[in-house]
């Protein structure tokens, strides 16, 4: 049985009105920004289910923009997120969308920075907790509890073992490991959730593996 956190009950400290529709939405926006790894310049936000139906009452839209601007769920600037986005040069658009058989509080965010872009889909699953279930078309399950190493690589034998060897050498323990691909032999994705932060040197070593085309680390969020 999981231990219930004292500050999950007497807390979290958050900007209202709803932990699932406001606080969780801030975290989803923030997750997209952290995954992008730089300032978001343009965002296309698609709201699914209950998010699309009740966003206005719980300010899910404002909360998502706040997260994209880098705010956490207790940031008192959240109510002013739209004007702050304007000042920061963040362009955004909202639409309703059917993301399929997913949690009712779900969103798909296409976030574009000055050099890079990501598409992140995630759900707010209650009490401010979130789950990212799709990253650039790859199925994942990230809740922001752990550090994450993410690689895109060519689907060849031995790549996974090379990557995990680097983590082992740096003394990093893997809590969860997911591997997926779209087509055999083409683009694949590795997602390791670790108990320890991943140092830049480890990232550099992973980057040098010939089949690896992209490496990214995610902090907890």
């Amino acid at each position, binding site marked *: 049985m999981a231990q*219930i956190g004292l500050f999950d009950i*007497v807390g979290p400290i958050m900007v209202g009105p709803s932990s699932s529709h406001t*606080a969780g939405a801030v975290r989803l926006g923030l997750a997209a920004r952290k995954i992008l790894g730089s300032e978001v310049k343009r965002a296309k936000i698609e709201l699914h289910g209950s998010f699309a139906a009740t966003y206005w009452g719980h300010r899910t839209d404002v909360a998502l923009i706040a997260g994209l601007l880098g705010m956490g769920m207790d940031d008192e600037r959240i109510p002013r997120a739209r004007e702050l986005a304007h000042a920061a040069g963040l362009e955004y658009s909202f639409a309703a969308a059917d993301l399929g058989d997913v949690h009712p509080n779900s969103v798909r965010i296409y976030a574009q920075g000055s050099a890079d872009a990501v598409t992140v889909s995630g759900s707010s699953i209650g009490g401010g907790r979130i789950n990212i279930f799709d990253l650039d078309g790859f199925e994942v399950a990230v809740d922001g509890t752990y550090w994450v190493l993410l690689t895109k690589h060519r689907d060849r034998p031995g790549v996974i073992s090379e990557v995990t060897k680097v983590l082992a050498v740096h003394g990093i323990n893997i809590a969860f490991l997911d591997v997926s691909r779209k087509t055999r032999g083409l683009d694949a994705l590795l997602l390791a959730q670790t108990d320890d932060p991943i140092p830049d040197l480890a990232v550099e070593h992973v980057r040098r593996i010939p089949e690896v085309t992209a490496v990214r680390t995610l902090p907890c969020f």
Partner: protein
Amino acid sequence: MQITSAGQLLELCAQRAQGLARVVAEYEAFRSSITVQEVRERMGETLQVMRVSVEKGREDQGRLSHLINGYGRLFEQAGREGRLLGGSLFRNAILYALSVGQYNASLGRIVACPTAGSCGVVPGALLAAAEELESSDEELIEALLVMGGVGIVSAAQGPISGAEGGCQAECGVASSMAAAAVVNLAGGSPEQVFSAASLALQSHLGLVCDPLASLVEVPCVTRNATSAAVALSAANMALAGIPAVVPYDEVVGAMKAIGRAMPESLRETSLGGLAATPTGKRLAQEMRERHQL
């Protein structure tokens, strides 16, 4: 170290010859790899956020809320003009709970306790009682730790969301936590702490979650205030030695069973109860038309 029920938590206290607050602090310290002192400091920060949310909520004009506005201000003004009944404890509990609920609806920074929808109950009852008792911050932190223990055993055995258990699982659990905290602050025994929690939750059993127009406003904000008043009543009865008869763990079990028997329309879907009244439907329709995506 685990905290699974009120009975087991009281046993832990007896085994370790420690008070409830100390056991809860050690539990959290162990769980999150920090020191007991750091747990207490973090609780002190939480207390501070509660206080600020009361102060800001009292002044809130409801610019960002939809169906309610300025509830704290209205209540405070009536008190100043001598139009209200009761002493300062009772009146302040209502005022503080309304203020925090109003502030939450206005995108203010609050402590979800245990949820955002029930965030006014604990600051309402506890901060009003602390003023009457002239409690120190250290005593308040103790009370918040004890109350956290009550919240943890509630969450370990039952729902704490309106979607799962109705409002009894939000304002009801918040009220039992608040009653427990007040008893601890007033010097009651650990047994009285859980009697108060039990009595408060008993008075919320069956309460449905039926907010108008899917907002956290009507009836949530005024319900926070009544739940704070129930917490004070339960605390006083427990301090008088009136027994809860049914132990807290069993009341949480009853709440869980009632939540399961509740139709989905009465669990935060805004399809039943007050949300389905002619007024509820009209307001929801007006809101929808104003905010078409």
